[in-house]
């Protein structure tokens, strides 16, 4: 859920990278952190097991001046992909503004991709939310591995909703497509925010809030 600090002219957005285990969610953030200039990125934090599997989440804050007159802060999170950590995934999804679903292109991972995508939709339901109202994109990752599933097939399996999501072919460990998907999801999130704000300001307020100042 976006948060605006009007005094500091800042808008905060939360973007979550979701997907099955070992699909490349953490690798996305690691790549971004390795190449982003220092004035754009904050400290990257990874909460991993000893086997480098995400235990809780990874976190990377980025900032941009993409909305005129404001600093836009994007907080990028990953979720742990392993099935046993579903409660953790729900916690990380709290207040999400945008989603990047990272699918593994290998044939043997299709079942896990589908299960994770269904799990995402189930978890959103617990917050009474749905993919219909949350900007989201799909990454078909690991496209460099020989003999992976064709994009058309992955699209057929994972992208069959009434409104199709934008999809990107990526090789996260090399950074291919990682920037494109980040830029796209950030733009989608900001556009949604601007659109919602415009609608709210054009709609006559039924119960306008009191305009009084907080006492000193």
């Amino acid at each position, binding site marked *: 859920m976006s948060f605006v*600090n*009007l005094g500091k002219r800042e808008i905060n957005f939360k973007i979550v990278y979701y997907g099955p285990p070992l699909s490349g969610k953490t690798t996305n953030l690691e790549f971004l952190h390795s190449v982003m200039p220092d004035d754009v990125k904050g400290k990257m934090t990874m909460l991993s097991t000893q086997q480098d599997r995400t235990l809780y989440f990874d976190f990377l804050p980025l900032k941009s001046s993409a909305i005129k007159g404001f600093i836009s802060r994007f907080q990028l999170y990953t979720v742990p992909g392993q099935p046993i950590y579903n409660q953790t995934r729900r916690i990380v999804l709290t207040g999400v503004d945008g989603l990047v679903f990272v699918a593994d292109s290998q044939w043997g991972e299709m079942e896990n991709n589908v299960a994770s995508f269904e799990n995402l939709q189930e978890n959103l339901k617990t917050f009474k939310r749905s993919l219909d109202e949350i900007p989201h994109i799909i990454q078909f990752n690991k496209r460099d591995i020989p003999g992976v599933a064709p994009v058309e097939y992955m699209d057929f399996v994972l992208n069959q909703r009434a409104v199709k999501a934008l999809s990107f072919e990526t090789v996260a460990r090399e*950074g291919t497509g990682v920037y494109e998907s980040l830029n796209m999801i950030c733009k989608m999130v*900001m556009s949604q925010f601007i659109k919602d704000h415009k609608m709210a300001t054009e709609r006559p307020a039924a119960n306008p809030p009191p305009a009084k100042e*907080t006492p000193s």
Partner: protein
Amino acid sequence: MNGYALRDDQGRALNRLLNRIAGQMEAEALLISDIGGNILAQEIRKEDESIQTIAALAAGSFAATRELARMIGEPEFLSVFHRGREQSIFMQSLASQFLVVAIVQKTTAQGLVKLCLEKIAPELEVILTATAGQSLADIAADTKLELADDDDDLFDEPDPDAQE
């Protein structure tokens, strides 16, 4: 739902309240965040870029303890204390959606932290409850939002040769 927004005067009021107790408890850092880890106000001794990460981790940690609380039949733990050798972190829930996070030295007793927070909690809750229900449109309807340049990428891909 277009998120929520904090007015300038509300932000200043939160900072004043934190400032009132930060000295008493000799806090290294004192901040108010929402349960998503967004910082609404902070009072810190030394500027540190990791404060945003601390807020995100504190929010995640508190959310995990909330699940633990539910498993034993509690709606949530009202506060959580992480005790370290030199510094400790105290977190307290406020108005269900917010947290106060205090980082204190080992010389500051946990009771003092609780006492200080109790003093300002009612005032904090009034402001935070009002904040949770207001959008940017509610507090600044005349704000026109537009992208700086619709055609440009937000984040420019660097030259591959410059990669670490």
